[in-house]
């Protein structure tokens, strides 16, 4: 079967697939769509199209052509991209098409459509694609060239756990705000040199809770002993935010403290006293978890 023939059959099937739910005006629109389906109907049909083993090559070729065609509506191209992403999970059966798929993603990585561009870059970044990484790095260094927001760029580059992006993320962190700052901290959680930063942020009562929570998990990952020291002080500090105390206590319960050595009697005593005083549900739950862990 050749591609144009497959396309005709496919579009007919798509229009048919979009019909059953149509009522009233929608039904009239669907009748028109039988000749030229609307973008929404086509997108819906692409999403619903079953996998066709015997014509997988044609199905993939059609989806790749739709994705790369800038004349097509965004929703249809997006549906094609999502369908290709789903097919990628077929493993060996999708292997013959993987090189073409990556090439199509690289083309779409600079597409004017933000949603498409962002999705394509993310799919490439998950695969640690050097071209996508280069685009993302360029955007972080020169914000006027950025193809995705800083937060997304950091998140996508963070998929490469080799940490080559870390020096740049350290710089970006200094100017980052909001989600970009949080993403930067997530990436820096694999950077042993950021241990001090996490300790400082975790201790800083003026910092946002989300930042302090991220700092707690970052520090615990980088240096469990250092985290324990700081977390104990936070748990014992009555002027501390209850949410951060609860987070610290839960982490202590799940960390080295509970698993690998007997609980420190002083800490247990502090926590027991705390259980009598606190009214915070989060704290109560963390206290119970911690005390249970010391019984092991």
């Amino acid at each position, binding site marked *: 079967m050749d591609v144009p023939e497959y396309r005709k059959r496919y579009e007919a099937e798509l229009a048919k697939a979009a019909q059953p739910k149509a009522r009233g005006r929608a039904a009239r629109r669907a009748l028109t769509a039988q000749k030229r389906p609307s973008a929404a109907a086509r997108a819906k049909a692409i999403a619903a199209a079953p996998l066709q083993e015997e014509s997988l090559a044609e199905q993939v070729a059609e989806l790749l052509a739709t994705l790369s065609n800038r004349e097509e509506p965004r929703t249809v191209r997006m549906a094609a991209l999502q369908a290709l992403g789903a097919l990628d999970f077929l493993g060996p*059966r999708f292997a013959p098409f*993987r090189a073409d798929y990556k090439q199509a993603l690289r083309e779409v*990585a600079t597409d004017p459509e933000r949603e498409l561009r962002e999705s394509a870059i993310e799919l490439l970044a998950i695969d640690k694609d050097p071209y996508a990484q280069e685009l993302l790095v360029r955007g972080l260094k020169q914000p006027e060239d950025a193809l995705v927001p800083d937060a997304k760029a950091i998140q996508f580059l963070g998929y490469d756990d080799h940490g080559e992006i870390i020096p740049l993320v350290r710089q970006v962190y200094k100017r980052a705000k909001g989600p970009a700052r949080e993403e930067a901290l997530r990436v820096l959680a694999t950077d*042993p040199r950021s241990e001090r930063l996490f300790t400082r942020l975790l201790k800083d009562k003026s910092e946002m809770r989300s930042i302090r929570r991220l700092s707690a998990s970052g520090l615990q990952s980088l*240096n*469990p002993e250092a985290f324990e020291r700081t977390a104990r002080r936070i748990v014992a500090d009555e002027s501390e935010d209850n949410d951060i105390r609860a987070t610290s206590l839960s982490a202590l319960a799940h960390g080295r403290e509970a698993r690998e050595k007997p609980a420190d009697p002083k800490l247990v005593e502090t926590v027991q006293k705390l259980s009598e005083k606190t009214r915070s549900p989060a704290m109560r739950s963390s206290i119970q978890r911690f005390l249970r862990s010391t019984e092991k």
Partner: protein
Amino acid sequence: MTARAARRSTASAADLAGRIDAIRRTPSAAGTLAAMLAEQSPFFTGRGNNEAERLRGYILASFETAGLPPEAVPFVLEELETGRNPYTVAAAARALRGAPEVPAEAPALLVGAIARLRGSDDVVSFERFEPTPASGNAATALAELARTLALLGPRAKPAVGDLLALIRGEGETFSPAVRAELARAAEALARAEPPATACSCADDGAGIVAPRSAAPFASAAPKDLRDLALETQDGARLSFSAAFSGRPTALAFFYTRCTNPEKCSLTVTRLAQLARRLLTEELDANVAGITYDPRFDRPARLKTYGADRGMIFSRRCSLLRTIGPFDPLREAFDLGVGFGPVTVNRHRLDLVVLDASLAVAARFERRLWHEEKVLDALRGANA
């Protein structure tokens, strides 16, 4: 250069690629480029893993026209045996085309690489360095590997059986273009007459490399390793000497952030198997792995990594990290490892066998080592 110094490197990868282009045009290109391939070369220092891989690939591909010198052959075979990056593996295949004599094992390694990369094929181009979306008719890594097999012709005949088995068993996992290239390669190999004489330039992957130093470290290493502080997966601290002296030791190097399953993950899995063999053979020896990445690979991480790969930890079987920098070990054992801005950017496989006095009795480098040969080396060190 130390890992810390690695972070100070500044020249852009594009500048370095320009240097490679300039070297390609010189009469002594092959030798100069081969000298740049060592992992610890300043050329790669401070680069990220992806950048180092691409630069390495760009150098390797140059040997197609510059000629593949003997000193670069182990790098090419290593890439074909354990490489996972389609760009670099394809570059190694290109390099083989410039070999005056093809190593006997190269055809089998090419077929192995095709099997290994069949799920991750990608378009590759060696015309220029920058990663860009190549044009529609650019070749893929698998096509490059198949073309090299076809070009080797008579010299690749020993691999024809493996190639045909791969096409029969996995044919549907290749694109039509790659299938056509593979069919052409199979035809070229089947038609060809085998070479009259075997090539003498083979680098036996299973083989032992002559120890560079037979003397104890006290006299051989720039810094005595005996007092080097180590920490085990359980957090116990001890000196290098306390950990390993008194009996032979198989000591390999790894790091938990390694993304190539053919390297560190496999190394630790095989260390675990080796440790079990020592028990059944009642051979009194140590089996250990030391991480290249001591700041990140803390005891808990080492413990989980080893346990997940079948390690049964004991006094004779451990994973360790240095308390301070890794550099003394790299210098003492001349390890093939380079560092990027944060962690390792590239490493070869390195396993050393030490005798009871901590002298290097044998070493296995770059290629996959075989358990039996390491056991033989341990027995020899014990004698």
